[in-house]
Structure formats: structure tokens, C-alpha cells
């Protein structure tokens, strides 16, 4: 568990991070979102002490980070930045091996770990291990950047706009891949972004920041239904609110008996996806299939619409 305790950063007379406290549960993905200049990157960089706090502290599993030597602390925390910062003079395998080498793992263990990670990120070791960063596409560079950050099995991963350099199509795929890997490894992630869609797509919890202050820290649905103030409400976007709410709920949760006509939708898809298919096909209901493809019921427009507004 990460405890951020009254964290403050001041440059001269300017407050960049103003007395922020929140807790990140183990194994969850927390998104820090806000406009540019809100202080979210500074907040993130105080967790691995790339920026020294003016006040307050950060606890990792109850251990004050100030008691751990800087470099040792950073070996334990994965870090991914926008643009990834891959080392241009090292090939993919050597880039990924950076932290294990700093930790003086033996050669065999490093080679094993690199191969494991390349497999995990769907990069064929035979093809990619010896490529240099300039020979990779943007999406591949991004995956290598995350693989490198995860190399020494950190319990915590910090990501600063990790998808910022990707185009829209690759970005949503990369987001899904990150979620899958996070679920699989159980890594705690704190991710900074200015993109509200990304925050709702990824976050178990969302921290909204503006002008150095933390305005609200809550689960996505809570943020939609009970925004703490006008700013959060505007940021969430009133017009998109119902659709965001729908994208947080799975088809499974509104399943009803019946056998509708048409192409079935998988139970793990969101209501947002179901609604858009209903609109597009002009039907009133869709059959629902489980992961194996067997029809288990249907989902109708009416049941979806009931979930698109806050419960009384």
C-alpha cells in the first residue's frame, strides 16, 4: 500500500503540490488526472524521489521512503515516462536488462527474465531482442519501455503520460494490454494523464488535481455521480457523463432472460459497447454470450438506459 501523507512541493513562492494525502491500495491502478501544470507529474516524481518533497512524506507498506537510499528506492519502483527514454545505444534486450544489471543479477537469470518479458509483451525474442530502439515502431517502443520498468519485478509502477506519444488506434490497444498485464502481475500502478477518457478506461480510482490541490479521490462511478465541485464536474464532462457511466458497467450485470435476434455480445463487454451496437443495428435487444460463446441471455435498450443515470 502506498500512503501519500500531506505531500507538499514548493519552488520559491510557487506551490506546485499543495498538501496532498491519499492512499493507493495494493494491486490497483490509480490514475492522477488534471490539466497541464496541475502538479501531477511533480506528485508522481516525489514518490520515487526524483523530486524531493518540501513537506510531507510517502510511505510504501508503512516504510518511509526517506529512510531508503535514493537509488535503492528507484530500483524497487518501475518508472515509465512519455517518450519512454529508451537507451538508443542499447538493443531491446539490454534496455530491458538495465535494472537487473544494476542489481547485479547473474547473467542467466537476466536472460531468462528478458525472454519472459518479451513473451509477455508479445515481442518475439528471436526477432526483437537484438533490435535497437530506432528500429521499433512507436507501439513496440512503448511496450519495451514498460517491460524495462517491470524487469526487476517492482511492486509499484509509476507511469507519466505513458501513452501520450501514441496515435489513437494504438493507444487504446496499449491501454488494454496494460490492464491485462496489470491484472496478471498484480502490480500497483500510479499513472498520470491529462486525458479523462484514459482515466475512466484504466483507473480503479481516480485522483483529480487542479492548481496543485487534490480535488477529489474516488472510484470512477463516484466521480460521475457525486463530483466534489464544479471543476470536477466540468472535467468529467456533463455531456459524456451517462456514457462514461455505461462504460463502467459490464453487460453481465444487466443480463435478462430471453433470446434476442442478431450477433451476440460478450458478457464482459461494457454497456457502452452494447448500446452503441444496438443503436447501429437498430434492434431493441441483443443476445449475450459467455466467454466460450454460448448464449446466456439478452440485453435490452431499456435495461441499459436505466444504468445511464445516477441511482436515486
Amino acid at each position, binding site marked *: 500500500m502506498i500512503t501519500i501523507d500531506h505531500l507538499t512541493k514548493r519552488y520559491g513562492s510557487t506551490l506546485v503540490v499543495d498538501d496532498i494525502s491519499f492512499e493507493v491500495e495494493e494491486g490497483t491502478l490509480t490514475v492522477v488526472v488534471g490539466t497541464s501544470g496541475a502538479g501531477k507529474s511533480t506528485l508522481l516524481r516525489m514518490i*520515487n524521489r*526524483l523530486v524531493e518533497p518540501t513537506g510531507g512524506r510517502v510511505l510504501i507498506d508503512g516504510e518511509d521512503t526517506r529512510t531508503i537510499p*535514493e*537509488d*535503492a*528506492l*528507484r*530500483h524497487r519502483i518501475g*518508472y515509465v*515516462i*512519455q*517518450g*519512454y*527514454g*529508451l*537507451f*538508443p*545505444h542499447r538493443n531491446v534486450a539490454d534496455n530491458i536488462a*538495465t*535494472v537487473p544489471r*544494476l542489481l547485479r543479477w547473474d547473467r542467466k537469470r537476466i536472460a531468462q527474465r528478458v525472454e519472459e518479458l518479451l513473451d509477455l509483451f508479445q515481442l518475439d525474442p528471436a526477432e526483437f531482442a537484438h533490435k*535497437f*530502439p*530506432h*528500429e521499433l515502431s512507436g507501439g513496440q517502443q512503448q511496450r519495451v*519501455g514498460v517491460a*524495462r*520498468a517491470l524487469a526487476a519485478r517492482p511492486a509499484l509502477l*509509476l507511469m507519466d503520460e505513458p501513452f501520450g506519444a501514441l496515435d489513437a488506434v494504438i493507444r487504446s490497444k496499449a491501454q488494454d494490454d496494460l490492464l491485462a498485464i496489470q491484472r496478471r502481475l498484480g502490480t500497483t500502478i500510479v499513472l498520470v494523464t491529462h486525458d479523462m477518457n484514459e482515466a475512466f478506461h484504466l483507473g480503479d480510482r481516480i485522483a483529480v488535481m487542479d492548481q496543485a490541490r487534490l480535488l477529489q479521490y474516488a472510484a470512477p462511478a463516484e466521480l460521475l455521480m457525486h463530483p466534489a465541485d464544479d471543476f470536477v464536474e466540468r472535467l468529467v464532462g456533463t455531456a459524456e457523463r451517462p456514457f462514461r457511466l455505461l462504460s463502467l458497467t459490464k453487460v453481465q450485470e444487466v443480463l435478462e432472460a430471453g433470446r434476442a435476434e442478431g450477433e451476440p455480445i460478450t458478457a464482459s463487454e461494457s454497456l457502452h459497447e452494447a448500446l452503441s451496437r444496438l443503436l447501429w443495428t437498430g434492434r431493441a435487444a441483443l443476445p449475450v454470450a459467455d466467454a466460450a460463446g454460448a448464449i446466456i441471455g439478452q440485453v435490452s435498450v431499456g435495461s441499459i438506459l436505466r444504468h445511464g443515470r445516477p441511482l436515486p
Partner: protein
Amino acid sequence: MRPSSLVRLSALLLLVIFVTMPEAFAFLFEPLITPGAPAIYNQGSLFALTMQHLRTVCLATLASTLLAVALGIFVTRPSGAEFLPLSRSLVNIGQTFPPIAVLAIAVPLVGFGEKPTFVALFLYGLLPIFENTLTGLTQVPPTALEAARGMGMNAWQRLVQVELPLALPMILAGIRLSVIISLGTATIGSTVAAKGLGEVIIAGLQSNNIAFVLQGGLVVALLAVLVHDGLGLLERIAARKLGRSLDETP
């Protein structure tokens, strides 16, 4: 074998044959001399002089490289940043001083022979290496440095594992420039009795023997071309690893 490497190889071969048995080329130089004068330099072995020449240049460049790279590293650290303007002007002064003037000043201090030449070449060679080291180190992508810091590399590890390898092609280009300048400049060392190819040229000038001047000049020129080529090859290998195209390293 590619044509370019063929040219390279034959130039090297020509040089080696010429300095080891210059007599074989006497017929080429005979038309240039007054009757009775020797056509081929006869006051010492061309091979020995070439080795001496190379030795002086190598030692001087090695010393310039050590100081210039160390200085370049120092002034790009946070603790050394305030010395940047100072070291820049010091190194620039080394370049603006004509080498012949350095010789004139150095002789009373260190005596005749190789030492004053070494001093002149050393000072003259600093600037290109220093400037290129600075450029190389300041061009390291900031994201790579940020990532290195974020992964827990300390300052030394960042320098050795990230900054220097990325600056290497630029530093090599500086060394190459410095060696080429020194190869030519070293000839004037012979005015203060340093052993080297300048001796051949000066002997030719004194006895009005154009063949000597030409021989000294040709050997220096061939050396310069070959060294330029060889070091250029090294740079390209270093740059290719970084995925840069060849034209980015001047």
C-alpha cells in the same frame, strides 16, 4: 571488396612501400632536381622519421584527448557548470596561438627537440576535442537521462553507461580533426630539432631540392588521408549503433 576499401588498401600499400624503399621511386623525382643532387632524401631513414612523426602526434593527441574529455565531462556536471565559460576561453586561447609562436615560447622553457613540439600540438589539439565532447554530452536525449535517473542509476553509472556511449561518435570526430591538424602542424617541429617528416621538407628547402620537399609533403599527406579515413570508419561504426545516419557526424 568494395572500390572504396580497394583505394584505401592501395594507398596504405603505397605509403608503406615508399617509406621502406624510397629508392625504387627515384626515377619519379629525378626530373625535379638539378644534376648531381640526390633524388631521394639521404640524411636518414624515411621510415624512422615517419614513425617518429606518428609517435609525436599520437602522444600529443592522447594527452589532448585526456584533458579535453575530462574537462568536457567536468563542465557538463552540475558542480562544474560555472567553469564552462572559463574553460572555453582557455581552450580557445590554445587554438588562437599560432603553433610556431608556441614553439618560440616553449624552447627557452623546455629546450630544443620533441618537447616544444609536443606542447604546441597538445595545446593546438585541445579545442576540437573539447568542443565536440561538449556537443556530444549536451546532445544526449533528456528522456534517456530522466529514465536512467528514474531507474536508479547514480551519477557515475549515468555517465559511463549512458552519456559517454551516446557522445562517443562526436568525441571521435573531434579526435580525428585534432589528429589531422597535428599531422600537418608537426612538420614545423623540425625547426626546433624535433625528429619527424618536417626534417625532410626543411632539408629540401635549405638545399633548394624540390624532390625532398615533395617527398616529405607527400608522406604527411598520405598519412593524413589514411588516418582520417581510418578514424572516420570507427566513427561510422559507433554512429551506426546509435541508428544515426552517416552525415550527422561531420
